[in-house]
């Protein structure tokens, strides 16, 4: 009776694992329907293509990097990425001042990087009678302006900020005079709240003077104030391409980063390389598994078949576990899978060799199986724990794909211990009764 109970339990566990790993049954609300099974494991950037970016927040004169500043920066970056239309980006904080951004399947990583990494602090500066050319830059302290090539001259000029981009409500790319074909691309903006009022007052009282528009300390344009600007809307015309105007509009809508960030690391895997790697490694993994399965059958015959059944269940459980934990499968992760298949057969080899010895020593089949299992146990435990230790260290200290490797290895070794011990044992015990027992020879 108890035996039947356990068989039902194991059957249910296997069904659940199939559902978790490949989802052959989908759900609309509570109504189930059949669908094409697909592996439910997240693919890492190295397998689906995409960009991995590490940013580090930098201290400025006025502002030291704080946890709040980094959090705020992450929020701004998230807003910007949302505008890029990236599906399922991840933005994580690492340590005190680092931000890790992962963008799956980005078409133009350089554009993404420009948008993510720019501080995008927009300032409207009162330069009174001084017109500044495009490309002139202020120093960080805001006291000296360097003119662009060819002059390269520096002039002392205090940066007197009237309003900043923080007061903007909206920004859009448009064409000058609404002429799509002939007009120069511009960015129109709309101030909100007190910013609008301040802007109106300032423009009213400084007619004829220059209001220089500065982005990240670099002059975009230096227009003359023609008259009082009411309603808080205005436009920025630099020498933009439409693309640049759009990017600037995105940056202004998402807001400026509270602290500047530096790109420490950028890794992009093109979509075709990712797909190739996935196809090749899956094929190689499948070939390796088939070879190992054949190898076990050649070596142990019927017990080898039992070990192979356990091995296939092992693969199923592993993928179910990875899917449940929402772990990411990376290229090294697939290698880890193949290695852990090797470890999974190792447990079986240890047990079978031990049973063989016990049988050679003259024990009966049942007794030999029992004592073989008992004696192999300490070797299996010790050898697996040492691998687990290595995987744990890699998980803690590794990043990106290496973490994926460690995760797969760790979970793989745990599950392989379970299948080797519980599943193979159950199968062998079942087979050690008539009529199957005469096939259980273990090569003796």
């Amino acid at each position: 009776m108890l035996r039947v109970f356990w068989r039902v339990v194991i059957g249910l566990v296997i069904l659940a694992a199939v559902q978790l790993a490949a989802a052959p049954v989908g759900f609309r609300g509570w109504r189930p329907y059949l669908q094409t099974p697909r592996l439910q494991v997240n693919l890492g950037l190295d397998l689906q293509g995409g960009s991995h970016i590490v940013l580090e927040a930098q201290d400025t004169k006025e502002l030291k990097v704080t946890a709040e500043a980094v959090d705020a920066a992450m929020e701004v970056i998230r807003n910007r990425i949302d505008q890029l239309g990236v599906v399922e980006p991840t933005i994580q904080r690492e340590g005190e001042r680092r931000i890790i951004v992962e963008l799956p399947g980005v078409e133009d990583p350089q554009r993404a990087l420009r948008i993510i990494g720019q501080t995008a602090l927009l300032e409207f500066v009162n330069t009174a009678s001084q017109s500044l050319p495009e490309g002139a830059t202020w120093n960080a302290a805001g006291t000296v302006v360097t003119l662009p090539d060819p002059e390269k001259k520096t002039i002392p000029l205090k940066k007197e900020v009237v309003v900043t981009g923080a007061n903007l409500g909206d920004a859009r790319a448009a064409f000058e005079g609404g002429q799509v074909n002939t007009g120069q691309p511009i960015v129109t903006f709309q101030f909100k709240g007190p910013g609008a009022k301040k802007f109106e007052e300032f423009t009213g009282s400084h007619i004829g003077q220059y209001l220089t528009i500065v982005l990240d300390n670099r002059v975009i344009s230096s227009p003359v104030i023609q008259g009082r600007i009411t309603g808080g809307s205005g436009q920025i015309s630099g020498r933009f391409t439409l693309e640049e105007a759009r990017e600037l509009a995105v940056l202004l809508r998402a807001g400026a980063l509270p602290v500047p960030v530096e790109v420490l690391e950028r890794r992009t895997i093109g979509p075709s390389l990712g797909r190739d790697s996935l196809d090749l490694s899956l094929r190689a993994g499948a070939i390796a598994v088939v070879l190992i399965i054949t190898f076990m059958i050649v070596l142990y015959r019927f017990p080898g078949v039992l070990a192979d059944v356990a091995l296939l269940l092992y693969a199923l459980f592993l993928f179910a576990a990875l899917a449940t934990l929402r772990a990411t499968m990376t290229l090294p992760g697939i290698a880890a899978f193949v290695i852990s298949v090797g470890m999974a057969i190792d447990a079986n080899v240890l047990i079978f060799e031990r049973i063989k010895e016990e049988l050679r020593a003259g024990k009966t089949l049942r007794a030999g199986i029992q004592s073989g299992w008992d004696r192999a146990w300490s070797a299996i435990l010790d050898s697996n724990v040492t691998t687990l230790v290595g995987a744990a260290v890699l998980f803690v200290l590794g990043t990106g794909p290496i973490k994926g490797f460690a995760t797969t290895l760790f979970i793989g070794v745990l599950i392989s211990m379970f299948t080797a011990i519980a599943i193979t044992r159950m199968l062998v015990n079942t087979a050690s009764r008539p009529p199957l027992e005469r096939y259980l020879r273990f090569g003796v």
Partner: protein
Amino acid sequence: MRTWDIIGNRRWGYLLSLFVIIPGVVALYVWGINFGIDFTGGTLLNLRLGREASLDQARATLRPFGHEDAVIQKSPESPREILVRTRPLSEEQVAAVERAFAQQYGGTEVLRAERVGPTIGRELRQKAIQAVILGLLLQVVYISIRFRSIRFAIAADIALVHDLLVVIGIFALTRKEVDSSFVAVLLTVVGYSVNDTVVILDRIRENVNLRLREPFDRLVNRSMLEVLVRSLTTGFGAIVALIVLYFFGGPTLRDFVFGLGIGVITGTYSSILVASPVLVEWQRLIDRRQRRPTEVAETASVPELAAVGGNTLPARRRRSRRRR
């Protein structure tokens, strides 16, 4: 069954180990490790061009950008692909290089573009060293606890250092580039090597606990032969899987799999011809200290080992308890 005297021939093993390790160590000393951009910082561009470009042509394309020191590689299997490694470039520079290649060779597709700042590289190197040392330490601790003997742990550890030297040495000899996944290779090798050694040590422990009156070196030899089939079977299975990955797993995985393969071979080898002989040598040393001038190993008996190493393991007791 014919019995092989592995322990008696262990000196050949030492010779073979030295034969592999010494050139590796010399290469390590002379050339050092060929660190990739993961560790040094730099830019890597892997492009698929519209049409084939020779290495000289590619170098000529790069020249206007002043990257004389860039390393350019091609693989014979995919002639339209090139791999450029250089010091860290800004995003604008990377874009300019991509454009130049696209113009001259009928378009490009970016397969891989990586830029690693020098700080990240330095950190990664530190972390890698930390990871390997931490991994080694934790495993020694685990073995010491499980075997209740520092001697077994040290034997396993010497085998481990042997394996790491072999793998690192061969990478230095072949000038293969070492990237962040090399750390994973090293730790997996550590895991595999210990795993394999532990299986043999486990059998030695078991036979020691049987307390048969048998010279220690005979006992070690017998234990090794008893588990030899499993060692070779598992090692063979792992190698088969790795060979398949090497040839069919695509170029990205190749160095990674190569390192693992070396590790599996040396890991299997070292449990038999390094770890176990170390135990025997140790025993001989103890015997010699106790002034038994001749035939030390032959007369050394197991209880002494137990006395010195504290090898009175309750393993059997525990086992019988479980058996009820």
